[in-house]
């Protein structure tokens, strides 16, 4: 990550300096500005859903969800503790329901719980991250809304191809993780 970022930034900055040097600083600032705007938007979503999640946790709802996902999480993440498996289940179910706002902090908590402080990504971390990177909400609401407002004849008919494509991507990802196991 560090190397890719450095190399790409060097090449891009040099290229932009040659093409249009007065744009270099504004581009950097614009990037940070966008990041800050985005962070504020996400702060609202995170605050809301972590608030709800705290309620869910205290009300025992999270344990219940974890129980439903147990067959799956036990299979894929058998070496992790109960609490970790709970975070994993919550993250996956939140993603499925399209609540990516709550899925992200839970995903972070899951990764934190998997950390063995070795500085190297553990098998569970890899598997979990790849599953997250290749999965979607079951109902891509935003995209469907965009198609509908542009006059599509059947805006939600992309759901099936989406589910198939994403399932295949996830399977490919999981297989690759297993194959590249140390």
């Amino acid at each position: 990550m560090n190397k890719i970022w450095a190399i790409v930034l060097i090449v891009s900055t040099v290229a932009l300096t040659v093409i249009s040097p007065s744009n270099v600083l504004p581009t950097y600032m614009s990037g940070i500005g966008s990041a800050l705007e985005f962070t504020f938007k996400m702060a609202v979503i995170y605050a809301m859903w972590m608030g709800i999640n705290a309620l869910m946790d205290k009300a025992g709802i999270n344990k219940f969800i974890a129980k439903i996902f147990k067959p799956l999480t036990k299979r894929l993440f058998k070496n992790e503790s109960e609490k970790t498996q709970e975070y994993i289940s919550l993250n996956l179910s939140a993603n499925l329901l399209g609540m990516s706002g709550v899925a992200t902090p839970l995903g972070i908590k899951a990764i934190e719980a998997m950390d063995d402080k070795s500085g190297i990504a553990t098998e569970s971390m890899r598997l979990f991250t790849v599953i997250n990177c290749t999965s979607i909400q079951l109902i891509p609401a935003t995209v469907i809304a965009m198609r509908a407002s542009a006059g599509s004849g059947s805006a939600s008919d992309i759901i099936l191809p989406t589910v198939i494509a994403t399932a295949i991507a996830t399977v490919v990802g999981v297989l690759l993780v297993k194959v590249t196991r140390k």
Partner: protein
Amino acid sequence: MTYVIPVFIALVLIIAFIKKVTCYDTFADGAMEGLKFAFTVFPYLAAMFVFIELIKASGVADALISVCAPVFTFLGIPKELAELIILRPLSGNGSLAILDTLIAEYGADSYIARSAAVITSAAETVFYVAAVYFSTVKVKKMRFIIPISLFASMIGAIVACLLCRFI
């Protein structure tokens, strides 16, 4: 479907209340945690957004797309989708912007716009997820997480185009 989230929230509140959870305090604690998360993540987002803006402004992104174009044509993927496929793992909002443009240009039910819609929905912003999920742990070696996710997403995109061609 519009009922899913409202019903869910209502249920959570009701169940928590019945189980005698201290709702006001608990919600506040959770909200605070959420806020902290958002700002823990910010520096990494800053690095990612700068990355994306720079490659776009400097033309490096276009160069990359031109390099990849022959591969896409070989796979039967229209070059209009190349930019989307390359940008998708980098930027969710950027992808939506491209999707918007493609829908406006080709019509919502065209092969290109439908493939774009599926690609946007089926893939994830890989770099964002990887950066954010690891923002609080000190992991130096990611051990192929990103290449694997990118490759798997690419397969997903190809499948998406194929499916849209035949449906």
